[in-house]
């Protein structure tokens, strides 16, 4: 299955391992294939190995073991400058002693393109990022967002089929970052290039990507489309890492097809979807998204298990209400409810019954 997958993949990692010191594996047995034109994001906490993977793909690090294929060809022994991969760096790495146009012209010059060719391509690339008038400026004279665009244009100007981006939006403020997320995705899709994007910002990963690979501890924990990742995390790490998440700890009492009955540590019973629990008696971490928790009995399905909760705090956040509850000994159980005209505002001290659809509550491995 692995082989058939990688044969039509544009980029493929096959059993790649990486160690810097010969003792600790930073990347453990990585298998990944990226089809042509896909926007794939590597997401994970720092030290999870995502940047190392990117650097191995770019050629700045060598894999300790395994093969990296680009368009079916192993690139393990190809030096970075011959890989033809565009790259956008965290701090843009625009050459400070060159003008913007010279920066863009650099990859074309080293490819020995003619002058008129170069000028045409530089102009097209600058126009593409709406920076047509800035060719004569130096990078230091540009704002962060403008530098970001130039860095992007430089990575694209020599028309690579694969572009790597290493936390390119990390230095921008929130508004600009959201705007640039949108522009980068559009550009990548319009040009049909394959993009590998590294970030530790999950919102960025969810909004931009076709698929997200969640890294932790040198492994891909889950690789899926953003909605699948969010709604169906395969393990407790992914569930906790992506989005906000309520967790309850318990033991599996009974598994009946798509529903598992879990007894929480304080004796309450809840219905869950078994994800990676297999046997009765397994310890499990149950995960429920705050916006899927319901406290209005009328909206709950008949026969759903409900449990008691004590309201600790009510926070008005404008578009939503955020209420912190104590559930089965967990003081940080949060529910989010839409600020609608008929929405109930809970008051601290109140005791309520909460419940959810069994498929929204996922019984995962206990950490």
């Amino acid at each position: 299955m692995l082989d058939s997958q990688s044969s039509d993949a544009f980029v493929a990692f096959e059993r790649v391992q990486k160690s810097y010191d010969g003792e600790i594996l930073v990347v453990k047995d990585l298998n990944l294939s990226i089809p042509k034109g896909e926007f794939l994001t590597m997401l994970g906490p720092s030290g999870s190995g995502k940047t190392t993977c990117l650097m191995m793909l770019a050629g700045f690090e060598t894999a300790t073991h395994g093969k990296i294929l680009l368009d079916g060809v192993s690139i393990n022994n190809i030096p970075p400058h011959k890989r033809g991969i565009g790259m956008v760096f965290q701090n843009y790495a625009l050459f400070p002693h060159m003008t913007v146009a010279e920066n863009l012209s650099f990859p074309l010059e080293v490819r020995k393109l003619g002058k008129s060719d170069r000028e045409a391509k530089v102009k097209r690339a600058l126009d593409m990022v709406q920076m047509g008038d800035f060719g004569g400026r130096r990078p230091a004279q540009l704002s962060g967002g403008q530098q970001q665009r130039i860095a992007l244009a430089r990575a694209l100007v020599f028309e690579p089929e694969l572009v790597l981006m290493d936390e390119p939006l990390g230095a921008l403020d929130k508004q600009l970052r959201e705007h640039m997320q949108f522009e980068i995705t559009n550009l990548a899709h319009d040009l049909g290039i394959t993009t590998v994007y590294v970030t530790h910002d999950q919102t960025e990963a969810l909004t931009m990507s076709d698929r997200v690979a969640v890294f932790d501890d040198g492994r891909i924990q889950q690789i899926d489309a953003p909605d699948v990742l969010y709604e169906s995390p395969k393990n407790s790490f992914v569930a906790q890492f992506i989005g906000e998440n309520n967790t309850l700890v318990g033991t599996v009492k009974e598994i009946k097809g798509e529903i598992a009955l879990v007894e929480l540590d304080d004796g309450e019973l809840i219905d869950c979807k078994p994800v990676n629990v297999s046997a009765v008696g397994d310890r499990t971490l149950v995960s429920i998204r705050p916006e899927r928790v319901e406290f209005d009995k009328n909206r709950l399905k008949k026969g759903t298990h409900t449990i008691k909760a004590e309201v600790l705090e009510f926070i008005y956040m404008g578009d939503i209400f955020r209420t912190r509850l104590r559930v089965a000994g967990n003081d940080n159980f949060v529910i989010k409810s839409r600020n609608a005209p008929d929405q109930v505002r809970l008051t601290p001290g109140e005791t309520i019954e909460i419940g959810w659809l069994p498929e929204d509550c996922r019984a995962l491995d206990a950490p």
Partner: protein
Amino acid sequence: MADTTQSGPMLAADGSPLKRSLSRTLRRQKLRALLLIAPLLIFVLVTFIIPIVSMLFRSVENQIVSHTLPQTVEALQEWDPNSGEPPDEAVYQALFFDMFKAAEAKRHTQVGNRLNYEQPGLSSMFRGTGRSLDDMGEEFEDALVDIDPSFKTSEFWFELLSGEGADSFLKDRRAKLAAMAGESMRGDIGFAPSAKALELLPATTEAYTDFAIWTAIVEEDVVAEERPWEAVYAGLGVDLRSAEVVQQIASYDGPGAAALKAAVANIDQLPQESFRDMFAESDEDWLDTEGWRTMALYSPDYTTGYFLNSVDLQKTIEGVEARPETQQIYIKLFIRTLYMSLIITGACILLGYPVAWILANLPLRTANVLMILVLLPFWTSLLVRTSAWKVLLQQQGVINEILVWLGFVDDANRLIIMNNATGTIIAMTHILLPFMILPLYSVMKTIPPTYLRAAKSLGATNWTAFWRVYFPQSVPGIGAGSILVFILSIGYYITPEIVGGTDGVFISNRIAYHISSSLNWGLAAALGTILLLVVLALYWCYDRIVGIDNVKLGG
């Protein structure tokens, strides 16, 4: 709240104009800042600015001739240097009195030394003649005492020449004497020259007044009780050579009239020899016009002579001309200093750049250990390091021994890498290397490695990435290091002195020679000034070409 309707200047809260209260606040800050830097400012002024200004001044100053031999210089104005004849008697006469005073102050040898720089031989001429001045005067003294014993007594002279009405004359003599001796001649001398005596016996009065000032102020004796200088007797002898004076003495009835009249009566007993002959007798070179031409040429207070000398030219009566080829050394030395400094700077760049690069790209801990190795030379005495090079470089030294042992060099043809330019370049490159590595390192430290990665990801080979991306960003470090090394090496002295031999010495060695051995400070100052100007000019060029903003010592 703000008073938007208010017209006129903005006011501070207390009603005073805002501008004034702002400047008052700032003034206090500025004053405090100034106080903080004051110690350094004073230190720099005293130890740096003043010595430099004094050096610049010394390179043109030439007052020693006109101060020591004022009357001679004045009399020499009349002489035509192109006449081919030595100057007339008046000049020799003036020289006698000037030299006599100078000899009392032991200054005549200094003029001799000064003139000797321009014409070798003058020094010994001055020194030798200085010894026979007393003899010249004694001839007059003996003759006068033979005629009338009262000439022997100190009271006679004191009474003869004391009086009043010649204050400005006394002041003038004091000033001249002060300029000659280089010390103050102010204070009571217990003697006032008489205007009448000055009119009657000008040379005598001048000599006696000088004697009086000297005796009272420098020797701190009572003028009236001291036997006058031989020069005073000579002064009388000179005065009595004038028929006019002889005539006036006949009608003179003041103090000492009898003795003066006796002297006039026996005038044929006084020495009749001219001063020119007396000087010629002491040293016949005094009749040589060359010496006098030199003296005439270097009699003004300020001279371009030192500077001309520094660029292998010389001053002559006809104008400026090149020195004889055998004496031309300074231009050659300047050029050698500049081009060897360039070679040393280049060598430092070539050797220092890779080291700085490695240091900048190693983990901090390793880099610090290696940095100690770079800095180690700083902690060793310069003299020790240079001497160590001497051990290494000599023909029987370590390097040659190893090369011979390895068979690279034949025993008979050992490399000569010391006491020549090669030795200087090797030793100085080593010594100045840290000055290149440190600025390079601190600049390279600030170049993020992502630039190289970015360049490579854009398709540049290692070399292109380095040359087009890394190197341009390290240029400020090269600039700073080069300026440091170049300017330091231009003024280097100890190392070339020890390992340079004759082919490897710098202009600074010559300056040091003139400062400490030949004592020609004027020439040393002129050479130093030229060196300073060359450095400033190069700095200006550098600023023009590279831009001084592009020099970074770090950050």
